[in-house]
């Protein structure tokens, strides 16, 4: 009996004949799943998957880490955040190092835990360092709203939330390199739905497919993207309907918009992207840790030679970095892409030792958009 994956692979080989495509998996969880499943080895020559900016820890700029570190050094301050953030290098230290020096830094599973800390220890100032995309920012918004409702005066929020769509649009607008299609996040899409991808496919003529995290689901997304490119009918398709509703989750979006306003935000390696971040709305300023505490920050500094900034925007593969596996490993990361479980470098390191998979050459006829080739963007596997 022929398996689903074999059927999809056969269809893909047939549909992709003669094509050279770069497809971006936006979400870090997809990157990890692609490597874990060995999916790249099943792709035909000419189909190349590149990791995108959907790893929240990876795109958090050093200045945010520096601010959290500076806050953690203040007397009576507790920092609450997700585990991956601890190892992310700031300009001169990391939260893990600070914890080793005695700072009160606590790993949380849910943003609501930070409220429990604040309630239990009213003498401490509890700062929730909120990183993540829509799926994580909605829970953070719930925590902010609950703190306001309950009048918890010792809860503060440091905003590092990001919106996935402006980053995708930014990559397409920048034209630094070609993206022929997007494998869209399974998690963030539960909140935002299919609509924003419809706009991307319409405005940029680039197809988008929302995918689940099983190998067959990602492979099906690749097949669908290739078919849309071949037939020159770029659209937005949801292949994760058992979880993602076409309209997303309006309750989660409402929670976000009640707590936050949309602002321009800086992304590691990608610069400032318009309307891509969140700041607390008027009425919640009292809990804005970025404004309520005066701290001195070191000049922001990326680890010298680290290519994480290019990796998150698909402009470089992890193996292009001189430190990859040589001085930068998941145990001793230099940059955030090696830290996070969703980071492209960590996935390459853990699962990609047997080669990066087939490479696509810039195609003339197959792409919907002919943008500058990979040479300019520094890709060289």
């Amino acid at each position, binding site marked *: 009996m022929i398996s689903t994956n074999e059927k999809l692979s056969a269809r893909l080989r047939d549909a992709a004949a003669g094509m050279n495509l770069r497809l971006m998996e936006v979400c870090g969880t997809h990157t990890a799943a692609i490597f874990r499943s060995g999916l790249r080895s099943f792709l035909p020559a000419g189909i190349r998957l590149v990791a995108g900016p959907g790893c929240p820890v990876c795109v958090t700029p050093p200045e945010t880490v520096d601010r959290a570190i500076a806050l953690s050094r203040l007397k009576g301050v507790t920092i609450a955040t997700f585990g991956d953030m601890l190892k992310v290098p700031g300009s001169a230290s990391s939260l893990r190092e600070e914890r080793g020096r005695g700072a009160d830094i606590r790993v949380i599973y849910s943003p609501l835990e930070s409220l429990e800390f604040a309630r239990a220890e009213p003498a401490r100032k509890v700062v929730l360092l909120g990183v993540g995309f829509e*799926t994580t920012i909605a829970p953070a918004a719930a925590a902010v709203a609950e703190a306001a409702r309950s009048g918890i005066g010792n809860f503060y929020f440091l905003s590092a939330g990001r919106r996935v769509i402006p980053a995708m649009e930014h990559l397409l607008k920048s034209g630094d390199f070609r993206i022929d299609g997007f494998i869209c996040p399974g*998690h963030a899409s539960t*909140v935002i739905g299919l609509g924003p991808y419809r706009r991307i496919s319409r405005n940029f003529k680039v197809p988008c497919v929302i995918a689940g995290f099983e190998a067959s689901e990602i492979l099906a997304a690749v097949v*669908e993207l290739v078919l849309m490119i071949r037939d020159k009918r770029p659209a937005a398709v949801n292949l994760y309907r058992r*979880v993602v509703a076409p309209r997303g989750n309006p309750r989660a979006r409402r929670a976000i918009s009640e707590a936050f306003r949309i602002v321009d935000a800086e992304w590691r390696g990608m610069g400032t992207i318009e309307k891509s971040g969140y700041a607390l709305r008027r009425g919640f300023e009292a809990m804005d840790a970025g404004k309520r505490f005066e701290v001195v920050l070191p000049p922001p500094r990326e680890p010298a030679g680290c290519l994480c900034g290019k990796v998150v925007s698909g402009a470089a593969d992890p193996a292009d970095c001189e430190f990859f596996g040589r001085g930068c490993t998941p145990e001793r990361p230099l940059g955030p892409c090696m830290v996070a479980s969703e980071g492209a470098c960590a996935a390459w390191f853990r699962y990609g030792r047997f080669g990066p998979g087939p490479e696509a050459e810039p195609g003339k006829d197959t792409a919907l958009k002919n943008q500058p080739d990979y040479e300019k963007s520094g890709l060289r596997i």
Partner: protein
Amino acid sequence: MEIIELEGEKAVVSRGGLKVRADVRFIDRPRKGDYVMVHAGFAIERVKPERAKEILEYVREMEELK
């Protein structure tokens, strides 16, 4: 994960014996026995088990169209 206990917005969800707390405020009319995707301690969306075979259906459609 399956909602096995529910009180207002607070739920306990379970998968394979693992039980964790989850907030269900983003789910419209949650019920015990619902399957949900949980992220950062919150149920973010209801999972539709009736669509579990969507990729098999996709392959079937793909073969029919070919």
